[in-house]
Protein backbone atom coordinates (compact mmCIF):
# COMPACT_ATOMS: atom_id res chain seq x y z
CA UNK A 1 0.00 0.00 0.00
CA UNK A 2 1.37 3.42 -0.88
CA UNK A 3 0.25 7.01 -0.57
CA UNK A 4 2.29 9.65 -2.37
CA UNK A 5 2.29 13.31 -1.49
CA UNK A 6 2.62 16.21 -3.86
CA UNK A 7 6.34 17.17 -3.70
CA UNK A 8 7.54 13.52 -3.61
CA UNK A 9 9.47 14.23 -0.42
CA UNK A 10 7.37 11.83 1.53
CA UNK A 11 5.64 8.66 0.60
CA UNK A 12 4.03 6.25 2.96
CA UNK A 13 5.16 2.76 2.28
CA UNK A 14 4.46 -0.06 4.65
CA UNK A 15 5.44 -3.60 3.86
CA UNK A 16 7.60 -2.70 0.86
CA UNK A 17 11.22 -3.68 1.15
CA UNK A 18 14.38 -3.48 -0.87
CA UNK A 19 15.26 -7.17 -0.87
CA UNK A 20 18.80 -8.50 -1.07
CA UNK A 21 19.37 -12.15 -1.77
CA UNK A 22 22.04 -13.67 0.47
CA UNK A 23 22.31 -17.39 -0.25
CA UNK A 24 18.72 -18.51 0.22
CA UNK A 25 17.95 -15.73 2.68
CA UNK A 26 16.07 -12.58 1.78
CA UNK A 27 17.23 -9.59 3.80
CA UNK A 28 15.79 -6.09 3.98
CA UNK A 29 18.53 -4.06 2.29
CA UNK A 30 17.23 -0.64 3.35
CA UNK A 31 17.49 -1.59 7.04
CA UNK A 32 21.07 -2.82 6.62
CA UNK A 33 22.16 0.31 4.73
CA UNK A 34 20.82 2.68 7.39
CA UNK A 35 22.19 0.46 10.20
CA UNK A 36 25.64 0.65 8.67
CA UNK A 37 25.33 4.43 8.41
CA UNK A 38 24.31 4.59 12.07
CA UNK A 39 27.21 2.35 13.08
CA UNK A 40 29.55 4.48 10.95
CA UNK A 41 28.36 7.70 12.60
CA UNK A 42 28.87 6.20 16.05
CA UNK A 43 32.31 4.73 15.31
CA UNK A 44 33.64 7.83 13.56
CA UNK A 45 32.37 10.24 16.21
CA UNK A 46 33.80 8.18 19.07
CA UNK A 47 37.12 7.77 17.23
CA UNK A 48 37.29 11.54 16.63
CA UNK A 49 36.40 12.27 20.25
CA UNK A 50 39.01 9.92 21.71
CA UNK A 51 41.81 10.56 19.21
CA UNK A 52 43.46 13.39 21.10
CA UNK A 53 42.42 13.05 24.74
CA UNK A 54 42.83 16.07 27.01
CA UNK A 55 42.65 16.18 30.78
CA UNK A 56 40.43 19.23 30.47
CA UNK A 57 37.94 18.10 27.82
CA UNK A 58 36.46 20.46 25.26
CA UNK A 59 34.23 20.23 22.22
CA UNK A 60 33.44 16.73 21.01
CA UNK A 61 35.34 14.98 23.80
CA UNK A 62 33.32 16.93 26.34
CA UNK A 63 30.06 15.91 24.68
CA UNK A 64 31.05 12.24 24.50
CA UNK A 65 32.09 12.25 28.15
CA UNK A 66 28.66 13.64 28.99
CA UNK A 67 27.05 10.84 26.95
CA UNK A 68 29.19 8.23 28.71
CA UNK A 69 28.26 9.59 32.12
CA UNK A 70 24.59 9.53 31.15
CA UNK A 71 24.84 5.87 30.11
CA UNK A 72 26.77 4.98 33.24
CA UNK A 73 23.97 6.62 35.20
CA UNK A 74 21.36 4.39 33.53
CA UNK A 75 23.38 1.24 34.23
CA UNK A 76 24.22 2.24 37.81
CA UNK A 77 20.62 3.07 38.70
CA UNK A 78 19.32 -0.30 37.51
CA UNK A 79 22.16 -2.78 38.09
CA UNK A 80 23.73 -1.37 41.24
CA UNK A 81 27.15 0.03 42.02
CA UNK A 82 28.74 -3.39 42.46
CA UNK A 83 28.28 -4.87 39.00
CA UNK A 84 27.32 -2.05 36.67
CA UNK A 85 30.74 -1.45 35.12
CA UNK A 86 30.88 -4.61 33.00
CA UNK A 87 27.40 -3.91 31.60
CA UNK A 88 27.98 -0.28 30.64
CA UNK A 89 29.21 -1.22 27.10
CA UNK A 90 26.15 -3.37 26.39
CA UNK A 91 23.56 -0.96 27.76
CA UNK A 92 25.39 1.96 26.17
CA UNK A 93 25.54 0.31 22.75
CA UNK A 94 21.81 -0.37 22.91
CA UNK A 95 21.04 3.20 23.93
CA UNK A 96 23.32 4.84 21.37
CA UNK A 97 22.32 2.59 18.48
CA UNK A 98 18.60 3.04 19.10
CA UNK A 99 18.89 6.76 19.78
CA UNK A 100 21.03 7.53 16.75
CA UNK A 101 18.97 5.37 14.42
CA UNK A 102 15.71 6.94 15.62
CA UNK A 103 17.05 10.45 15.15
CA UNK A 104 18.78 9.79 11.84
CA UNK A 105 15.57 8.19 10.59
CA UNK A 106 13.65 11.33 11.53
CA UNK A 107 16.19 14.03 10.65
CA UNK A 108 17.77 12.89 7.38
CA UNK A 109 15.60 13.36 4.26
CA UNK A 110 15.98 9.75 3.14
CA UNK A 111 13.44 10.14 0.35
CA UNK A 112 16.08 11.97 -1.71
CA UNK A 113 17.89 8.63 -2.07
CA UNK A 114 16.04 6.57 -4.63
CA UNK A 115 15.82 2.85 -4.11
CA UNK A 116 14.33 0.39 -6.62
CA UNK A 117 11.71 -0.54 -4.03
CA UNK A 118 10.92 0.52 -0.49
CA UNK A 119 12.58 3.53 1.10
CA UNK A 120 15.32 4.22 3.62
CA UNK A 121 14.06 4.81 7.15
CA UNK A 122 15.10 4.31 10.75
CA UNK A 123 16.26 0.69 11.19
CA UNK A 124 14.19 0.52 14.37
CA UNK A 125 11.00 0.95 12.34
CA UNK A 126 11.56 -2.58 11.02
CA UNK A 127 10.33 -5.25 13.40
CA UNK A 128 13.29 -7.54 12.63
CA UNK A 129 15.79 -5.04 14.06
CA UNK A 130 13.87 -4.55 17.29
CA UNK A 131 13.29 -8.28 17.77
CA UNK A 132 17.02 -8.88 17.28
CA UNK A 133 17.84 -6.23 19.90
CA UNK A 134 15.26 -7.64 22.32
CA UNK A 135 16.59 -11.20 21.92
CA UNK A 136 20.09 -9.89 22.61
CA UNK A 137 18.73 -8.46 25.86
CA UNK A 138 17.20 -11.87 26.72
CA UNK A 139 20.52 -13.63 26.10
CA UNK A 140 22.30 -10.96 28.13
CA UNK A 141 20.14 -11.31 31.21
CA UNK A 142 20.28 -15.13 31.15
CA UNK A 143 24.07 -14.87 30.85
CA UNK A 144 24.23 -12.36 33.69
CA UNK A 145 22.08 -14.57 35.90
CA UNK A 146 24.13 -17.72 35.21
CA UNK A 147 27.43 -15.97 35.63
CA UNK A 148 26.41 -14.43 38.92
CA UNK A 149 24.44 -17.24 40.56
CA UNK A 150 25.15 -20.41 38.54
CA UNK A 151 22.28 -22.90 38.54
CA UNK A 152 20.83 -21.06 41.51
CA UNK A 153 19.47 -18.66 38.92
CA UNK A 154 16.67 -21.15 38.28
CA UNK A 155 15.55 -20.99 41.89
CA UNK A 156 13.71 -17.80 40.98
CA UNK A 157 11.27 -19.91 38.97
CA UNK A 158 10.06 -21.78 42.04
CA UNK A 159 10.45 -19.11 44.69
CA UNK A 160 7.30 -18.50 46.64
CA UNK A 161 5.16 -21.24 45.19
CA UNK A 162 5.81 -23.84 42.45
CA UNK A 163 2.38 -22.99 41.04
CA UNK A 164 3.83 -19.71 39.80
CA UNK A 165 6.33 -21.56 37.59
CA UNK A 166 4.32 -21.11 34.35
CA UNK A 167 4.01 -17.40 35.00
CA UNK A 168 7.78 -17.00 35.42
CA UNK A 169 8.37 -18.96 32.21
CA UNK A 170 5.81 -16.85 30.35
CA UNK A 171 7.53 -13.74 31.64
CA UNK A 172 10.74 -14.77 29.88
CA UNK A 173 8.80 -14.72 26.60
CA UNK A 174 6.79 -11.58 27.21
CA UNK A 175 9.88 -9.53 28.09
CA UNK A 176 11.43 -9.63 24.59
CA UNK A 177 7.96 -9.42 23.02
CA UNK A 178 7.00 -6.23 24.79
CA UNK A 179 10.50 -4.72 24.41
CA UNK A 180 10.54 -5.23 20.65
CA UNK A 181 6.93 -4.22 19.94
CA UNK A 182 7.14 -1.13 22.12
CA UNK A 183 10.13 0.21 20.20
CA UNK A 184 8.92 -0.90 16.76
CA UNK A 185 5.38 0.39 17.27
CA UNK A 186 6.46 3.77 18.60
CA UNK A 187 8.97 4.48 15.84
CA UNK A 188 6.70 3.24 13.06
CA UNK A 189 3.81 5.23 14.53
CA UNK A 190 5.94 8.38 14.60
CA UNK A 191 6.93 7.93 10.97
CA UNK A 192 3.36 7.19 9.91
CA UNK A 193 1.92 10.19 11.76
CA UNK A 194 4.53 12.51 10.25
CA UNK A 195 3.94 10.92 6.84
CA UNK A 196 0.17 11.42 7.03
CA UNK A 197 0.59 15.05 8.12
CA UNK A 198 3.07 15.75 5.30
CA UNK A 199 0.64 14.13 2.92
CA UNK A 200 -2.17 16.45 4.03
CA UNK A 201 -0.19 19.70 4.51
CA UNK A 202 3.38 19.60 3.19
CA UNK A 203 4.66 22.74 4.96
CA UNK A 204 5.04 23.98 8.57
CA UNK A 205 2.03 22.13 10.05
CA UNK A 206 3.88 18.80 10.51
CA UNK A 207 6.73 20.51 12.42
CA UNK A 208 5.27 20.18 15.96
CA UNK A 209 4.49 16.53 15.29
CA UNK A 210 8.05 15.99 14.06
CA UNK A 211 9.45 17.58 17.23
CA UNK A 212 7.15 15.41 19.33
CA UNK A 213 8.46 12.46 17.32
CA UNK A 214 12.06 13.36 18.14
CA UNK A 215 11.11 13.60 21.82
CA UNK A 216 9.30 10.25 21.95
CA UNK A 217 12.05 8.47 20.02
CA UNK A 218 14.64 9.73 22.50
CA UNK A 219 12.41 8.53 25.35
CA UNK A 220 12.03 5.13 23.66
CA UNK A 221 15.81 4.73 23.45
CA UNK A 222 16.02 5.63 27.14
CA UNK A 223 13.26 3.18 28.03
CA UNK A 224 14.74 0.32 26.04
CA UNK A 225 18.15 0.66 27.65
CA UNK A 226 16.71 1.26 31.13
CA UNK A 227 14.58 -1.88 30.86
CA UNK A 228 17.48 -3.92 29.49
CA UNK A 229 19.61 -2.80 32.43
CA UNK A 230 16.85 -3.51 34.93
CA UNK A 231 16.27 -7.05 33.56
CA UNK A 232 20.01 -7.70 33.85
CA UNK A 233 20.13 -6.29 37.37
CA UNK A 234 17.05 -8.31 38.37
CA UNK A 235 18.62 -11.52 37.04
CA UNK A 236 21.81 -10.91 39.00
CA UNK A 237 20.35 -10.19 42.38
CA UNK A 238 19.24 -13.16 44.48
CA UNK A 239 15.95 -13.22 46.32
CA UNK A 240 17.07 -11.02 49.16
CA UNK A 241 19.91 -12.65 51.11
CA UNK A 242 22.80 -10.93 49.35
CA UNK A 243 20.98 -7.63 49.41
CA UNK A 244 20.57 -7.95 53.18
CA UNK A 245 24.26 -8.73 53.58
CA UNK A 246 25.07 -5.61 51.61
CA UNK A 247 22.97 -3.53 53.96
CA UNK A 248 24.65 -4.88 57.08
CA UNK A 249 28.18 -4.65 55.70
Amino acid at each position, binding site marked *: *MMLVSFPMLAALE*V*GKHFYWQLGNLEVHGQVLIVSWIVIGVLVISSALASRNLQTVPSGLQNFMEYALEFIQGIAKDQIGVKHYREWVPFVGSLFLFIFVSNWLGALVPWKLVKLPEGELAAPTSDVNTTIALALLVSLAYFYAGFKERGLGYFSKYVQGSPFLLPLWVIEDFTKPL*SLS*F*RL*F*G*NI*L*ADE*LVVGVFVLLVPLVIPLPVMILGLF*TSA*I*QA*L*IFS*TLAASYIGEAMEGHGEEAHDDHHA
Partner: protein
Amino acid sequence: MDPLVAASSVFAASLAVGLASIGPGLGQGNAASRAVEGIARQPEAEGKIRGTLLLSLAFMEALTIYGLVVALVLLFANPFAA
Protein backbone atom coordinates in the same frame (compact mmCIF):
# COMPACT_ATOMS: atom_id res chain seq x y z
CA MET B 1 -9.35 -9.42 -1.20
CA ASP B 2 -12.75 -10.67 -0.18
CA PRO B 3 -14.85 -7.52 0.49
CA LEU B 4 -16.17 -8.99 3.73
CA VAL B 5 -12.59 -9.58 4.97
CA ALA B 6 -11.56 -6.07 3.88
CA ALA B 7 -14.52 -4.41 5.57
CA SER B 8 -14.17 -6.32 8.81
CA SER B 9 -10.39 -5.73 8.87
CA VAL B 10 -10.82 -1.98 8.57
CA PHE B 11 -13.54 -2.04 11.21
CA ALA B 12 -11.38 -4.17 13.53
CA ALA B 13 -8.36 -1.92 12.97
CA SER B 14 -10.27 1.17 14.03
CA LEU B 15 -11.69 -0.66 17.06
CA ALA B 16 -8.20 -1.89 18.00
CA VAL B 17 -6.74 1.61 18.23
CA GLY B 18 -9.87 3.18 19.69
CA LEU B 19 -10.36 0.65 22.47
CA ALA B 20 -6.65 0.40 23.19
CA SER B 21 -6.47 4.14 23.83
CA ILE B 22 -9.21 4.20 26.52
CA GLY B 23 -7.28 2.50 29.31
CA PRO B 24 -3.95 4.28 28.79
CA GLY B 25 -5.85 7.58 28.52
CA LEU B 26 -7.41 7.07 31.93
CA GLY B 27 -4.11 5.87 33.35
CA GLN B 28 -2.11 8.79 31.97
CA GLY B 29 -4.65 11.28 33.29
CA ASN B 30 -4.48 9.66 36.70
CA ALA B 31 -0.67 9.64 36.72
CA ALA B 32 -0.44 13.26 35.56
CA SER B 33 -2.93 14.47 38.19
CA ARG B 34 -1.00 12.71 40.95
CA ALA B 35 2.26 14.16 39.65
CA VAL B 36 0.79 17.67 39.74
CA GLU B 37 -0.41 17.05 43.29
CA GLY B 38 3.06 15.84 44.22
CA ILE B 39 4.74 18.88 42.70
CA ALA B 40 2.28 21.22 44.43
CA ARG B 41 2.98 19.59 47.76
CA GLN B 42 6.74 19.41 47.28
CA PRO B 43 7.94 21.79 44.54
CA GLU B 44 11.61 20.97 45.20
CA ALA B 45 11.07 17.37 44.01
CA GLU B 46 9.82 18.54 40.61
CA GLY B 47 12.75 17.19 38.58
CA LYS B 48 12.52 13.70 40.02
CA ILE B 49 8.74 13.58 39.70
CA ARG B 50 8.89 14.75 36.10
CA GLY B 51 11.43 12.09 35.15
CA THR B 52 9.41 9.29 36.73
CA LEU B 53 6.19 10.66 35.22
CA LEU B 54 7.62 10.73 31.69
CA LEU B 55 8.95 7.21 32.00
CA SER B 56 5.64 5.83 33.28
CA LEU B 57 3.66 7.78 30.69
CA ALA B 58 5.76 6.13 28.00
CA PHE B 59 4.98 2.71 29.48
CA MET B 60 1.25 3.43 29.31
CA GLU B 61 1.68 4.79 25.80
CA ALA B 62 3.12 1.42 24.82
CA LEU B 63 -0.26 -0.24 25.48
CA THR B 64 -1.94 1.96 22.89
CA ILE B 65 0.93 1.26 20.56
CA TYR B 66 0.23 -2.49 20.85
CA GLY B 67 -3.27 -1.77 19.62
CA LEU B 68 -1.77 0.30 16.82
CA VAL B 69 0.55 -2.55 15.85
CA VAL B 70 -2.45 -4.86 15.60
CA ALA B 71 -4.27 -2.26 13.50
CA LEU B 72 -1.27 -1.82 11.20
CA VAL B 73 -0.94 -5.58 10.75
CA LEU B 74 -4.64 -5.77 9.83
CA LEU B 75 -4.30 -2.93 7.32
CA PHE B 76 -0.92 -3.55 5.72
CA ALA B 77 0.01 -7.18 6.37
CA ASN B 78 -3.36 -8.85 6.67
CA PRO B 79 -2.88 -12.59 7.22
CA PHE B 80 -6.40 -13.33 5.92
CA ALA B 81 -5.95 -11.43 2.66
CA ALA B 82 -5.12 -14.49 0.56
